[in-house]
């Protein structure tokens, strides 16, 4: 146990010592990783926050049935009956053109408009809430109602929510692609750094192999170096994201105040932070593992 522990502490101390000796290089390396990792993390924070804005809006789709202006009262009643009997409808509400007109005149925002009109332009309307709110079902219902006698227009109110949802999904896909590409870049960058370190320590590796060092023994310090670079890069990325969110928030606050909203960009939560750190560490380890294995294979051929 003690020996096992020593075999890990000793290379770790050695690597930390070397990093300390070459502090500037180590810091630069962590910065490169930090900047690279922070790009998708910032994008994620933005998309995640927009998603929260969208989630805050009542996203239950409602169907509005605007009736023809010349629809007779019997047609209105017939539609009311149809809605009542329809199995897919949770509830519905009738708003007559008179009450809508009244509302419009009372509403401060629209009173001016109504005052400039000399006759009521509004149609009678039914507001329908469907039982099943899956977009496909709502759309089918909308098409069906559009065909009904006396209906001028059947309109789904939640279209813009769906559009925003689609855009956010696209954003998430973009993040995924970005993460994959930048992850590959990081593996390459770390792999190359470790490869250069191996070249400077080629003599040590050769001598170690000659006097009976196992491949694990030779690999260990380089794997620790890669992992530490990953950890440093992950922490740098986290700090960058915090700084960027803080910076954005001063402007976001101004804009949100103009809209009388309490909206603020939220800091990355614990899950995201841990995921970011872990993936950075994993990428660092992977990069050094690939580099050190390739070098070992090359040395063995000599």
């Amino acid at each position, binding site marked *: 146990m003690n020996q096992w522990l020593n*075999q890990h502490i000793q290379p770790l101390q050695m690597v930390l010592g070397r990093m300390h000796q070459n502090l500037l290089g180590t810091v630069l390396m962590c910065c490169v990783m930090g900047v690279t990792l922070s790009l998708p993390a910032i994008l994620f924070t933005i998309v995640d926050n927009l998603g929260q804005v969208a989630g805050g809006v009542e996203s239950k789709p409602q169907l509005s049935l605007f009736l023809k202006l010349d629809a007779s009262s019997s047609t209105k009643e017939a539609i009311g009956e149809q809605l009542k009997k329809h199995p897919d409808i949770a509830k519905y509400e009738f708003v007559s053109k008179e009450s809508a007109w009244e509302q419009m005149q009372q509403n401060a925002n629209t009173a001016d408009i109504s005052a400039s009109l000399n006759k009521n332009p509004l149609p009678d309307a039914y507001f329908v809430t469907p039982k099943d709110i899956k977009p496909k079902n709502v759309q089918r219902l909308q098409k069906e109602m559009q065909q009904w006698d006396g209906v001028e227009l059947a309109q789904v109110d939640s279209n813009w929510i769906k559009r925003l949802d689609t855009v956010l999904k696209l954003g998430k896909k973009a993040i995924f692609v970005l993460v994959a590409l930048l992850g590959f870049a990081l593996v390459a960058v770390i792999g190359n750094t470790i490869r250069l370190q191996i070249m400077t320590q080629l003599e040590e590796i050769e001598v170690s192999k*000659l*006097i009976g060092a196992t*491949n694990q*023994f030779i690999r260990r310090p380089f794997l620790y170096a890669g992992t530490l670079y990953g950890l440093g890069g992950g922490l740098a990325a986290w700090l960058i994201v915090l700084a960027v969110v803080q910076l954005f928030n001063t402007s976001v606050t101004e804009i949100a105040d103009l809209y009388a909203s309490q909206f603020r960009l939220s800091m990355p939560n614990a899950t995201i932070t841990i995921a970011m750190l872990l993936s950075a560490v994993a990428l660092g380890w992977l990069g050094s593992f690939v580099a050190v294995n390739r070098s070992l294979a090359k040395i063995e051929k000599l």
Partner: protein
Amino acid sequence: MIKFDRVSKRYPGSFDAIKNTSFEINQGDLVFVTGASGAGKSTLLKLIAGLERPTSGTVLINNQNVSQLKAAAIPYLRRNFGLIFQDHKLLYDRNCFENVALSLHINGILGEEAAKRIRAALDKVGLLSKEKSMPITLSGGEQQRLAIARAVVSRPSILIADEPTGNLDEDYATDILGFLYAFQQVGVTVIIASHELPHNIPDNMQNVVKVLHLQHGELTA
């Protein structure tokens, strides 16, 4: 302990460096591998130490067939040997103490126990006062002694030295050989490659000396 049976070694695109060689080395032997440059001395030592695998024939080390060993087992085989190279193969980015420490570190020995053994090994070759010196500041003879300290600190059962006195003058050479003989006296098998048989082998060791003389890759009696 080491047994060669009709061993040949051919490097790719080259002639046979070792041809059809059979011999046996026992525990505690003092073996000299002699021959002109290019006769195959270094190749023979590499085969003995498990640094190379034979092209044909079998090499048995402690009853293990080297050809059949898995790659992962080779490092453990090598730990039976203390290797001393003609060009020392010291690491010039660390001091004497740390050079010797490498041998123990790969065996997982660290800390106080390692320090004790490193100082004992340095003391044995007369370099205890220079443990903090960098190898580049040592003379040729001292560097070779440091290489011996590194080879013996892990207490190998076989010591192999490839032309350990090749670049040294007479006095230093006698010095180095003396150290190697001392290890043979405590039961270590010592194998030395050398241009020719040294003429100053102590009388009390004459009867344990074994000579493998190589000519164009073949053993001559």
